[in-house]
């Protein structure tokens, strides 16, 4: 007897599609949630530090000190939040989150500059948000350096001995959104795919229809693949919709081939959908299966895939664990295709690893059925 009879496979796929089309909860999960998540997270997760609240204590009050302050504001990274009289007020400003950085220009700043001495400038930072403080410090040092160079050039008409001409590739303006949104596509599709299928087998157990199926000639492979087919189609539509929205709404460049994204998404979806089926068959309850699917996919994809935190910076055990997170490979694919425009010659390894993940996911799903079924 054939393990994969096309007529039975089609019967399962057709039935699953009808059930899906009549279930509002699944429809919302399939079509509305991915786009909603993309919009929410796409706007919420921003690493760029802009408009850092700056307080200036200008004790010099000269043209030079005002020029320096203008330099800070013109950089676009700082906005003037307060101009206290004395440096001692910095503590109060930090405590109330009025300022994140306080600039103290001491008396005699312009005089030192004019006399050719090294003028000093005090920068106080609120280190309770270490991330922002580090970035703000970098910006402040850059503004001060530019100011210093301008003074040098204006005075002596010298040429600087060395100038580094930095140019950033792939994400020229260093917008974190360009990095986050392609990664989000992977995180969202992993979660949605597993949650979609997590309902389907548990539902059959809960309603007693699994026993009826088990008494028919249908095999485990037919049930697994028959249930996968409609969700695979939905997953591909979702991936395309989310990718289109990433370009249209967030202006993320799509430099590579969308046609390459399609087969690679297919492998990724196969694995994630299979994982959802496995969870569904093991849990046998819709509520439990959905929760397990959510936790088992969303958190690892979010935290351990390189989406939020660079994998190279993780401790060795977590780094090893990240190899088991399929989103890790798909994120390389989406970032590669969106930003770098690379092709299969670069993404081959990721493709193969996702095929391996799909094989494992499907094998788990097929195995998790009771032995009695086919």
């Amino acid at each position, binding site marked *: 007897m054939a393990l994969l009879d096309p007529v039975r496979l089609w019967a399962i796929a057709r*039935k699953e599609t009808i059930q899906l089309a009549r279930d509002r909860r699944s429809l919302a999960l399939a079509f509305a949630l991915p786009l909603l998540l993309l919009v929410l997270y796409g706007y919420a997760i921003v690493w760029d530090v802009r408009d850092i609240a700056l307080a200036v204590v200008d004790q010099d009050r000269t043209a030079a000190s005002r020029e320096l302050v203008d330099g800070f504001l013109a950089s676009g990274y700082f906005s003037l939040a307060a101009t206290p009289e004395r440096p001692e007020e910095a503590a109060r400003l930090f405590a109330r989150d009025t300022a994140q950085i306080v600039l103290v220009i001491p008396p005699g700043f312009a005089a030192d500059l004019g006399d050719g001495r090294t003028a000093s400038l005090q920068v106080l930072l609120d280190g309770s948000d270490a991330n922002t403080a580090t970035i703000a410090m970098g910006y402040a040092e850059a503004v001060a350096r530019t100011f210093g160079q301008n003074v040098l050039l204006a005075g002596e008409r010298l040429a600087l001995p060395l100038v580094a001409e930095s140019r950033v590739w792939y994400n020229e303006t260093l917008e974190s959104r360009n990095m986050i949104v392609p990664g989000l596509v992977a995180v969202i599709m992993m979660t949605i795919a597993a949650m979609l299928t997590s309902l389907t087998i548990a539902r059959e157990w809960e309603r007693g229809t699994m*026993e009826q199926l088990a*008494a028919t000639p249908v095999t485990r492979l037919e049930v697994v693949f028959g249930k996968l087919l409609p969700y695979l189609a939905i997953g591909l539509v979702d991936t395309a919709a989310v990718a289109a929205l990433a370009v249209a709404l967030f202006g993320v460049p799509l430099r590579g081939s969308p046609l390459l994204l399609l087969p690679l998404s297919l492998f990724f979806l196969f694995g994630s959908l299979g994982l959802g089926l496995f969870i569904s068959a093991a849990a046998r309850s819709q509520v439990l299966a959905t929760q397990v699917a959510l936790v088992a996919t969303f958190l690892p994809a979010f935290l351990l895939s390189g989406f939020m935190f660079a994998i190279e910076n993780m401790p060795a055990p977590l780094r090893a664990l990240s190899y088991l997170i399929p989103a890790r490979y798909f994120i390389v694919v989406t970032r590669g295709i969106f930003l770098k425009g690379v092709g299969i010659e670069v993404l081959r390894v990721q493709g193969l690893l996702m095929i391996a993940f799909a094989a494992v996911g499907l094998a788990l799903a097929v195995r998790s059925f009771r032995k*009695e079924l086919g």
Partner: protein
Amino acid sequence: MSEPAVEVRELTRRFGDFIAVDRVSFAVARGEIFGFLGPNGAGKTTTIKMLTGLLAPSGGEGRVAGHDIVGERPAIRQSIGYMSQLFSLYADLTVAENIAFFAGLYGVSGERFATRRAWVLAMAGLEGAADRPAGELSLGWKQRLALGCAVLHEPPILFLDEPTSGVDPIARRRFWDLIYGLADGGTTVFVTTHYMEEAEYCHRLALMNRGRLIALDSPARLCAASAEPLFAVTADDPLAALAALDGAPGIVRAGLFGRDLHVTTAGTAAGRDAIARRLAETGVPLRALAAIDPSLEDVFIARVEAAGGAVAG
């Protein structure tokens, strides 16, 4: 007659220390309506699950439609229809979609599908309701539709696990008319039940209790073979009569049966005396006392008690 439709020898199923089915042997002839009767927990459903390939036996052997129940489960699934005691169609699919789904699983296609679909709709009385969601049907209709889906592929053997639970006697009678129709057409029907009226419809009955097969015969012969005399006792106060007779000398068993009592005694003449004497002693007025033939229910209760009583719960 060729080989039996169903044949099991020493069939056993253990769940840990609990023996759900204990060395059961029987054979079901082709075209027979074979009933499995027993209290809850007797092992009826476990047996049917082993025969349909849903559960592996712990011991013994069996053949269904000529196929081994352990090694040839795929072949068995193609030759049987199965209807479980729960409504197991898809409530969110329409009647027609359920029929089409099961037809796909059984490989019924083309012209045969059109014929069978029309047959199922007519058989279940659902001609005008093909596009109604199956979940909205009344229970009697659901059961007839489930029966139709189970026999779409015209299987030689049909397994029914408590098929008419929860419906009224008229719907039950209608369902059984369909069963008789199928049996007339040569289908072997294997049915579990704990309804006496359903058991009476079977050609042969296997009585199960505590995992053991305790009797196997036609309903009429089971009743005739009952050795102990039975009396119907009519009293103004049946509860007082029951209290007086239960456990009295010469009385084997007493139980309420409608407004009367059915009382089993050790001997016919002595029994009549024992009942009359005991009621006179306890001052319970006796209206009527008559020897009667046992009903299937009397036989069932007597056999189960003789075999150690039903499991609690």
